[in-house]
């Protein structure tokens, strides 16, 4: 059975970007630190993403993420990342939650669909993914999906740093408290810990 799985790298104090994030600075100042467990070095190619350098445990976690069958993200996450060039990984379908028209040209990207509700984005992605899981990305989508009860699992990559500023993953959660069940911890290279939780609906 397919599950929707939030995949985010975060500082211990819960930030997913550094300060001064923007369209040309999607990770914020110094935000690459949160992703070094998987991607590091000089960016290459049209998407501006550093090469994959994960090994060992980190590689296993990265490969799991890259074996998901669909991607759901928010408009900001997607557009500030240049739309991942229209293909996040392996040509899987991408569903972008947005109440507005696309802010970038997606006409040449057949994998990308804009959807105006989080519930629809999740259910369409699950259908598209078949037996595989759905990778979920972004803070805004996380809040809405948790409140709507359509996020099944969390895979957080907790990096040993206190950021103090930037965008928080969990901010303004519009719901009562949510109980979780921890299902896995993997200690990655370099001090990152991969914590996996199931959301108790």
């Amino acid at each position, binding site marked *: 059975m397919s599950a929707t799985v939030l995949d985010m790298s975060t*500082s*211990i*104090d*819960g930030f997913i970007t*550094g300060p001064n994030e923007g369209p040309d600075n999607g990770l914020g100042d*110094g935000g690459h*630190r949160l992703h070094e467990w998987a991607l590091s070095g000089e960016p290459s190619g049209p998407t501006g993403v550093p090469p994959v350098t994960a090994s060992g445990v980190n590689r296993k976690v990265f490969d799991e993420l890259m074996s998901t069958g669909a991607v759901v993200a928010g408009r900001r996450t997607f557009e500030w990342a240049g739309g991942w060039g229209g293909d996040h990984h392996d040509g899987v379908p991408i569903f972008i939650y947005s109440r507005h028209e696309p802010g970038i040209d997606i006409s040449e990207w057949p994998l990308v669909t804009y959807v105006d509700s989080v519930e629809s984005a999740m259910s369409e992605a699950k259908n598209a993914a078949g037996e595989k899981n759905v990778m979920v990305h972004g803070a805004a989508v996380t809040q809405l999906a*948790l409140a709507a009860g359509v996020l099944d699992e*969390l895979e*957080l990559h*907790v990096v*040993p*740093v*206190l*950021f*103090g*500023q930037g965008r*928080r*993953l*969990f901010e*303004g*959660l*519009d*719901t*009562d*408290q*949510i*109980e*979780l*069940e*921890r299902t896995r*911890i993997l*200690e990655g290279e*370099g*001090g990152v*810990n991969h*914590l996996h*939780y199931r959301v108790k609906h």
Partner: protein
Amino acid sequence: MATVVADMSMSLDGFIAGPEDRIDEIFAWMGSGDVEVPLPVKTVMPAFRTDEASAAELRSTLDTLGAVVTGRRTFDLAGGWSGAHPMGAPAWIVTHNPPDGWEDTQVNFVTEGVESAIEQAREAAGDGLVGVAGASIVRQGLNAGVLDAVRVSVAPVLLGEGIRFFDGLENPPIALRPPRVVEGEQVTHLYYEVDARARR
């Protein structure tokens, strides 16, 4: 030399207390297990009841704890632990207005700020552990560069609102060393040493 450790339980979304200072879910791991760890001072509760891995962590802390530093808010919420901290160590409370009536107890009040409180606690702790608790005190300790380590016990819950553990850092980012990880039944204990560059 003493080791100064910020030690707090926190929800996965970063809160050490929920709305109206609720701590039930965050502290659940200390009271809901089969393994008993008796407290040296039993005024608040007689013992922790937890899982085996968490019990080992608590025993180790109790064995080495030499002093506690916390804030006035924590002290007041706990009713001053009736004058003796449950963990059995003398406590230093940072406050602007020391209350009367706590003479001849294990509680000391410090009006010169967090750094002074930690320095006094360090001297009292010898080679032991100085436990630092309370969001505001931890923040000031991190900003002053006087914390050696941070232990976060992560509870499996999202609270959505409340008091954040880490807020208002003045000189971020603060690098930490790769943690020691202890898997409790559901709680996750992460013990990070503060990188030397972020210490004084």
